[in-house]
């Protein structure tokens, strides 16, 4: 819900995600799919639509699409049809894109959103189909010319279309992260929006609660999840304003301007589009064996939802912590390695709060972490064995993240062992109580909040190394006395 001047509005969003399929060769040609090659070096005469060239379908791309469909709990259509979507554009050499229209390879499925409050919500997937990517047009190399590179032309894409079930920019973000996690878990797409291996168009409309669907606009040209959330928010507010001003929302395609954070209508002529889909006569319907599909189903890796459930069940994590960790394959694996033979919740906290926080500040991914899961595990062990206190552990961790050093060595080198010698701690407690006579008096007259202050003073006096349990015990005894 968004509040307008005249009441609240509901945002209705459907997403069309284009995910580049991971494969060696293109969907219909034997040219390579490597990212970042010299312009037009990964182009076959088929991709460049030379006269007489014909498409032959890549089996692995079909497998990738079916696996993705299965992971979305979707219906796999054993017969699907490739059609031509006809339009002219310089980076679309044949003047048509081979896509699927009436009979896609994957039908209805769903994605479960893990909401921040720990609840979940299912978003319906309308379909998933296979199609070819276009080449790249470079408009910024020359004031009067557009340069065309066909390396990407013909690379396989999965278009994953959701029903208009999303209700906020936040849900859009959760949906895309979840979808990306699934694709990555499967190894069917990198799902990287910044690199363009995943692209997303959003259909956005607004309505008064309970009213019929409003006119939607389609937002294109967004290259990060954050920008898409921003674009959806902007677009919804813009539409609400239009409606509240008594205007009508026009059905149109709008481009997101990331510099301004706004959307604007596309300048090219929309009315010139009539895609004239028809079955590609160079291809016959794709028929899959049920047995082959079943085999793929059996070979699927553990997916984020199953992983989350296992993390809750086996490790006793909260639903939201489990969802968070299961949502990223690398984090999940790191967590599991860290939690091996240790208290799982403690391990989860270390991974989610300390490790990911520190990596985030350094702009690193988990793969680039200077601290290995084994190393973090040993640090946790040092705390649980009582060798160091939790507070010291954070200091040690800060050192580890900088140098990658082993926690044991850091503790040894810096002499950070926890002091559990009651005599030494008692000395420190006595010293603090002698010094802070005023506060001791206040405490004894009822200001029990001061207890924490005394703990802090003792810890400071022992450079944080005092065993906190012993400090508490001694302080309580002496203050009572």
């Amino acid at each position: 819900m968004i509040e307008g001047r005249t009441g609240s509005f509901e945002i209705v969003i459907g997403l069309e995600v284009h995910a580049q399929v991971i494969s060696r060769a293109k969907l219909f040609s034997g040219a390579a799919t490597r990212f970042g090659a010299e312009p037009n070096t990964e182009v076959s005469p088929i991709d460049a639509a030379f006269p007489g060239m014909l498409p032959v379908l890549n089996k692995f791309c079909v497998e990738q699409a079916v696996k993705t469909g299965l992971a979305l709990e979707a219906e796999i259509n054993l017969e699907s049809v490739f059609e031509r979507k006809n339009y002219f554009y310089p980076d679309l050499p044949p003047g048509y894109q081979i896509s699927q229209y009436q009979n896609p390879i994957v039908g209805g499925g769903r994605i479960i959103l893990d909401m921040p409050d720990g609840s979940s919500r299912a978003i319906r997937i309308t379909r998933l189909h296979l199609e070819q990517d276009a080449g790249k047009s470079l408009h910024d190399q020359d004031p009067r010319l557009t340069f065309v590179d066909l390396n990407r032309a013909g690379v396989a894409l999965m278009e994953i279309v959701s029903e208009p079930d999303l209700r906020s920019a936040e849900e859009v973000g959760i949906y895309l992260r979840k979808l990306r996690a699934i694709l990555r878990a499967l190894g069917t797409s990198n799902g990287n929006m910044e690199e363009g291996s995943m692209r997303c168009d959003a259909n956005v409309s607004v309505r008064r609660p309970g009213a019929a669907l409003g006119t939607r606009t389609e937002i294109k040209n967004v290259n990060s999840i954050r920008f898409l959330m921003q674009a959806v928010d902007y677009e919804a507010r813009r539409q609400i304003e239009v409606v509240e001003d008594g205007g009508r929302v026009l059905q149109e395609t709008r481009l997101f301007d990331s510099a301004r954070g706004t959307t604007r209508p596309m300048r090219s002529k929309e009315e010139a589009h009539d895609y004239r889909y028809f079955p590609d006569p160079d291809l016959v319907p794709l028929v899959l064996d049920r047995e082959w599909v079943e085999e793929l189903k059996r070979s699927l890796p553990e997916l984020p939802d199953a992983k989350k459930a296992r993390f809750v069940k086996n490790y006793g994590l909260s639903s939201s912590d489990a969802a968070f960790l299961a949502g990223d394959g690398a984090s999940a694996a790191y967590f599991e390695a860290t939690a091996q033979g240790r208290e799982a919740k403690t391990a989860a906290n270390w991974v989610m709060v300390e490790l990911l926080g520190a990596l985030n500040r350094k702009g690193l991914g988990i793969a680039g972490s200077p601290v290995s899961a084994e190393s973090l595990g040993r640090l946790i062990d040092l705390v649980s064995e009582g060798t160091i206190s939790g507070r010291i552990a954070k200091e040690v961790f800060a050192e580890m993240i900088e140098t990658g050093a082993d926690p044991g060595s850091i503790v040894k080198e810096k002499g950070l062992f926890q002091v559990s010698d009651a005599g030494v701690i008692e000395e420190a407690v006595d010293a603090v109580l002698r010094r802070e006579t005023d506060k001791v008096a206040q405490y004894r007259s009822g200001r029990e909040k001061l207890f924490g202050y005394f703990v802090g003073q003792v810890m400071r006096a022992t450079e944080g190394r005092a065993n906190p349990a012993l400090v508490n015990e001694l302080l309580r005894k002496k203050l009572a006395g």
Partner: protein
Amino acid sequence: MSSLTALTLAEARAGLERKEFSARELTEAFLAAMAKARPLNLFITETPERALQMAQACDERRRRGAPLPLDGIPIAVKDLFCTKGILTTAASRILEGFTPSYESTVTEKLWQSGAVLLGKTNCDEFAMGSSTTTSHFGPTLSAWRRAGDNRPLVAGGSSGGSAAAIAAHAALGAIGTDTGGSIRQPASFCGVVGIKPSYGRCSRWGVVAFASSLDHPGPLAKTVRDAAILLSAMAGHDPKDSTSAPLPVADFEAALTGEIKGLKIGIPAEYRVPDMPAEIDALWQSGIAWLSEAGAEAVEISLPMTRYALPAYYIIAPAEASSNLARYDGVRFGLRVEGGSVDEMYELTRAAGFGAEVRRRVLIGTYVLSAGYYEAYYLKAQRVRALVARDFAKAFEKVDLILTPTAPSPAFAVGEKSDDPIAMYLNDVFTVTADLAGLPAISVPAGLSAEGLPLGLQLIGRAFAEETVFRAAEVLEAAAGFHHAPAFLASGEP
């Protein structure tokens, strides 16, 4: 050497085997004949140097005692087949200067069999036409003339250059493509044999596409045997063409046993169209008699959808063409007319690059696929196509082959039907059905019209039953005894 060009392909093959002449001598004879036939405008590109090189290689192989099946046989190739390093135009201005970096599967197979390339023959632009008059390079003229009338006649089309080249003895064999009748109708007009094999028999890879679900590469030749020899070399499964049939290819020449006793020949009542000249009907009756005398049994059949095949074709073929020809946009190859914007460049390039008939079909095709018309035109036509195929399937439960005239008329004069597209389209009324259904169909020269022009009869077979088609066609050919020479040759062999 003057008689070398008069040989059939099988005779030339035997002469080469017996070393009566070399491949080089044979090729030189044809290059000379081509030069003499230039007034007929048979070729868009002649490739004499390539031909002599290839012939030389053939002779060397033969000297080593390792000849290939077609070693030294000079053939002409419709300019719709992409040939590596050789100009390929589809007879269109829009492919001006286009030199492919690849070789079509069919031509590659022919070269692998030792055939020699004489040149690329003229055809209707993008194979759209029935007269080889829509070519950007001007019309091909037939080697034939009406008795007592010197007006130039069309060679038929779209593979008119290929058919006329054989008739003019400027090639020993030729290859063409048949989408609505483009091999059989020019074969009929020029008094030569032409077969459109089953859909999927010959690869479409490297053939400039007109209508993908209808395009059939196939051979044209002087005799049924020659056509069988060529088809054996051209046919076969091609993993690069997803619609290629994964079936083994028989030795079609071996099927020519002369034995057709007991074959049932269907005679479809619906092919007796209202305006058909009596002489064509009479020839058809002769054909029935010839086959019956050889032991086959004529059976009346009904193909009720026949008259709807042509209108269905003129929706489906333009629809596919409108999409297949979208790649001619001035960006990567061929003609480009600069414009202020990319769309203007497209529009000017395509307006200048396509001739009137291609433009007509691309526009019709675009229209029938566009929103609101797809169901009424395109899907309707595809349903009728299914009914046409169903007609044949039913008929082939009762008969082995179907005999019909190839075309409703003999060749007409250049310019005669050019202002009425529909009159031109009606040329394909008997041939288009086999294209829609993907069935093998051959045209055999069977007689002359009253004006002295060749007329062909067509035999249609079950899918992939080319052997039966060839066998009966040879019997028909022998019975018809067509040995007439066109005016061009009567004026003196080279």
